[in-house]
C-alpha cells in the first residue's frame, strides 16, 4: 500500500496515512462542505489497510482543533473500524490531542473514549 497524504485546506485537516510506519495522522480543522465525500477515500484506504496482514501496532494521532457535527459522526464511524480491527487482533492505539483552552475538543475526546471502552484511547494535552 502507498502512503495517503492529503494537504490541509481552510476547511479540512492534513491527513497522512503511512502503512509502513503504521501511523495515521490527522491535524487541523474539519468542517468540509461534504464531510462524507471528503473522508470516503480515507475510510476506503483504512478498510483496505486492515484487510492486509500486519503484526506491528497502528498508532492514530488526531490533532483536530475544530470540527463540525458530521465530522464528529464520521470519527465515530472511523473508530468503529479501528475497534473492529482491534477485535480482529490488530494492535491499535488512538492519541487524541487537545488544547486545554479548547473545551469542545476535550469533550469530544472524552465522548469517544467513553464510547470505545476497549480501544486504547489516550487524551493528551498539548
Amino acid at each position: 500500500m502507498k502512503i495517503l497524504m492529503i494537504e490541509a485546506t481552510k476547511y479540512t485537516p492534513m491527513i497522512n496515512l503511512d502503512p509502513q510506519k503504521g501511523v495515521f495522522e490527522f491535524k487541523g480543522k474539519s468542517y468540509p462542505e461534504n464531510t462524507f465525500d471528503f473522508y470516503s477515500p480515507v475510510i476506503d484506504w483504512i478498510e483496505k489497510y486492515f484487510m492486509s496482514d500486519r503484526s506491528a501496532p497502528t498508532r492514530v494521532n488526531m490533532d483536530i482543533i475544530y470540527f463540525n457535527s458530521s465530522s464528529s459522526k464520521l470519527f465515530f464511524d472511523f473508530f468503529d473500524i479501528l475497534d473492529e480491527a482491534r477485535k480482529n487482533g490488530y494492535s491499535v492505539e488512538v492519541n487524541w490531542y487537545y488544547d486545554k483552552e479548547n473545551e469542545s475538543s476535550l469533550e469530544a475526546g472524552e465522548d469517544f473514549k467513553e464510547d470505545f471502552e476497549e480501544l486504547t484511547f489516550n487524551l493528551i494535552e498539548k
Partner: protein
Amino acid sequence: MDIRQDRLIDELQVFMESDLERFKSLGERIIKDIRRQHKIMEASDKRQRKEYDQLQEKLLEVERLNREIEDTQKEVVFTMGAIGESRSKETGNHVKRVAEYSKILALAAGMSEREADLLKQASPMHDIGKVAIPDDILNKPGKLDESELDVMKQHTKLGYDMLKHSKRPLLKAAATVAYEHHERYDGNGYPRGLKGEEIHIYGRITAIADVFDALGSDRVYKKAWDDERIFELFKNEKGKQFDPHLVDLFFENINELLKVREEYRDLFG
C-alpha cells in the same frame, strides 16, 4: 448527512429479508448510533451557544473600539481646529458654530448624512494653517500692509500642505476646506483664484459658514453686525463672493442657522 452513505439504512434493508440474530445486533447498533447522534447534537448545541456568545461579545467590543476611534478622531480634529482659531482673532464657540452651520448647509445642498457629518468635522480646521503664520503679523494691532497680507493669506496653502498627505477622508476634506475657504465664487479669492464650481463644495460651504459666524460675533476689535446688515451682505455677495445656490439655501435655512448661533452663543464675562 447524506442518506446514501448511512450504513444502518443499508443494513436495515438487508434485514428486511433476514433473521432474528441479525435483527438483535442491528437493533443494538441502532440504539448505539442514536445515542451517539444525541451526544453529537448536544455537543454541537453547546458549542453553537458558546460561539454565538463569543461573537456577540466580539461585536460589542468592535463597536466600542469603533466609537473610541471616532470619538478620538473628533476630539483631535476639534482640538486642531481650536488651535487654528486660537491663532486667529476668533473666539469661543466659533469653530463649533462653523461646524454646525456647515452641516446644515451640506444637508440642504443634498449631501448624505454621512458626508454632511464629515464636513461638519472637517470645517473647524479651516484656519489650521495660521499656526504657521508669524506672531508679529498675526497679532499686529492695526491694518496689515500688502506684504503682510500676502503672508497672512498663505494660511490657506499652509493648512492644505499640513493635511494633504493624509489618506483619511476626514483629513482630506479638511485639507480641501483649509485650501479653499477664502476662494470666491467670482474668481477673485485666494490663494488660487478658483472660480464657480472649480471651488470644491466643501470650500464654498465653509466660506459661507465662516463669514456668517465672523460677522455675527462680537470681537475684541469690533461689535457684531446686526442681522439685517449680514443678510444684506449675503444678498449682495450672491454669485460674487458666494455660490448663489448656497446663498439661497442659506436663506431657506436661516431659522435653523440662527438657532445654532443662539445655542452656541459666546458668553462674555
